[in-house]
């Protein structure tokens, strides 16, 4: 499917486009200013930056959960205005940091169906989606549970399933994997890779090096504007930028950098086995 969007015509199709967008509670001290960017359909973009730099604010402007104070936002060809908010929101699914903030139903099943009912789907289609997405997120066994009976990570998976089941073209994750253990996080990355290949556009606010590495593009927010727009690999080679957005490289990158600092030239190892083989190629015993 992905190839579909790599044809010249489609690759240029910006699904999200912002022009001179600003936001602030107080015009003297804007939280975001002069944000201009565009995201192509089928792209997976990481949004990074230190705590409090405006990442969550930025994504909330896209579906008017917060009102922009200046500039223009175009989503899937529609200009964001009073009378387009409704249809724009239908196309954007958002998963928040704290899953407690988005639980509506009294059980997991009701919670997931709530969004689907809102889309006026047939009962058959609702059943299909419920089954499909609860299986995908590994929560089919929790359907009759009350949110109070779930752990933080389980709630987060329910929140993700309930959004994905609505099949929005654009999915926004606001640190939605913060409570997942590494295993579940890797599963989520897998699911997202699948979605991207189906042509979903993904925006992901994250501090996680592995998540960033899995994405196509990184937007660095700093001081209320876009400080850099680059590929993940470029970010992890730029120590100054990493420090600026309070990030760290993935562990193998850290290790390679520390080794180079000590005069041991080595590439970033793909695995621990590769590191051993590169460092000690001869089989002499110690």
């Amino acid at each position: 499917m992905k190839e579909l969007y790599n044809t010249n015509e489609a690759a240029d199709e910006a699904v999200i486009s912002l022009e001179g967008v600003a936001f602030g509670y107080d015009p003297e001290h804007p939280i975001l200013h002069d944000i201009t960017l565009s995201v192509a359909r089928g792209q997976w973009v990481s949004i990074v930056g230190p705590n409090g730099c405006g990442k969550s604010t930025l994504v909330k402007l896209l579906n008017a959960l917060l009102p922009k104070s200046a500039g223009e936002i175009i989503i899937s060809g529609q200009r964001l205005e009073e009378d387009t908010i409704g249809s724009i929101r239908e196309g954007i699914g958002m998963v928040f940091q704290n899953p407690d903030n988005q639980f509506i139903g009294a059980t997991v099943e009701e919670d997931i169906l709530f969004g689907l009912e809102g889309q006026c789907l047939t009962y058959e289609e609702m059943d299909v989606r419920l089954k499909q997405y609860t299986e995908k997120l590994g929560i089919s066994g929790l359907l009759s549970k009350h949110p109070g009976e779930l752990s933080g990570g389980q709630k987060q998976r329910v929140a993700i399933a309930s959004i994905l089941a609505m099949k929005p073209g654009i999915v926004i994750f606001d640190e939605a994997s913060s409570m997942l253990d590494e295993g579940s996080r890797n599963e989520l990355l897998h699911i997202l890779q699948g979605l991207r290949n189906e042509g979903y556009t993904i925006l992901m606010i994250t501090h996680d090096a592995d998540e960033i590495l899995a994405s196509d593009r990184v937007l660095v927010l700093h001081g209320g504007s876009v400080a850099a727009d680059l590929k993940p690999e470029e970010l992890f080679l730029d120590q100054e930028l990493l420090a600026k957005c309070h990030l760290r490289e993935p562990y193998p990158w850290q290790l390679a950098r520390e080794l180079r600092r000590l005069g041991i030239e080595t590439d970033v190892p793909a695995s621990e086995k590769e590191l051993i083989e590169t460092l000690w190629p001869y089989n002499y015993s110690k």
Partner: protein
Amino acid sequence: MAIQLQQVSYTYADRSLWRQTALHDINLNIAKGSMVGIAGATGSGKSTLLQLFNGILKPSQGTVKVLDVTIQAGEKAPRLLPLRRRVGLVFQFPEQQMFEETVEKDLIFGPLNFGMSPEEAKMRARQAMTDMGLDLALLERNPFRLSGGQMRKAAIASVLAMDPEIIVLDEPTATLDPLSRAELIGLLERLCREQGRTIVIVTHRMDELLPYADQWALLKEGRMAFQGSGQELAADPDILESCGLSVPHSLRYWNAVARRFGLEGEKPCLTAESLAERIALLQAEGMRDRHE
């Protein structure tokens, strides 16, 4: 012992059709003044376990001893209010529990409720701010005007202000940026090493706590799957996978190097910096050996 659990089980909604046992037959010892990590996959019972530590939940079976208080299943619990001051619990997303107009009012709320005088409470609030590395000028601020990292630290300070001997934190670093995470773990370690407080951290990010924790407890489906030092855990990383946790990179790389050179008995080098230095040393030794 700061905390001792003997054959503890906990069942939610015990007398209903929906009864669900979250913890089975848990034995756990946490020494005074130690730093302990509790890990497990999502839904393994971590958050349930820590609510037993100050009597929010009472054991369905077995005995929970915290400091000098004993809570036994089936028996009437002793007065728990003093214990709740001495054991500070920091829940997930603690900043969402802040409610006052200023950080200072939020911080003195707990101490005042536990009967401290306003002067003492204010003093404790200042001390807690300093311990959390926060500027005292923030005391006058509205808590909702702080950045995410500051808010999290202020929320932890509001528990610290009660001067607890044991501090239990549930996923304290979730959603913080990596720099703030490392900083917070560093601050918690100082509370442990310099002030002798017992620190218990529930986490699924073992890598950031591995270099600091004295002890680990791993939960699997409500049962205790492992209890021991980080070094013991490093020697047997398969146990992590059997608990549904993945082996952190730092541990995988250390083990590969340790196995290659028979360093299993050493204290593991679990940061990129320390491992790089150890590798440099190994290479220098290798050079020397070849010359001899």
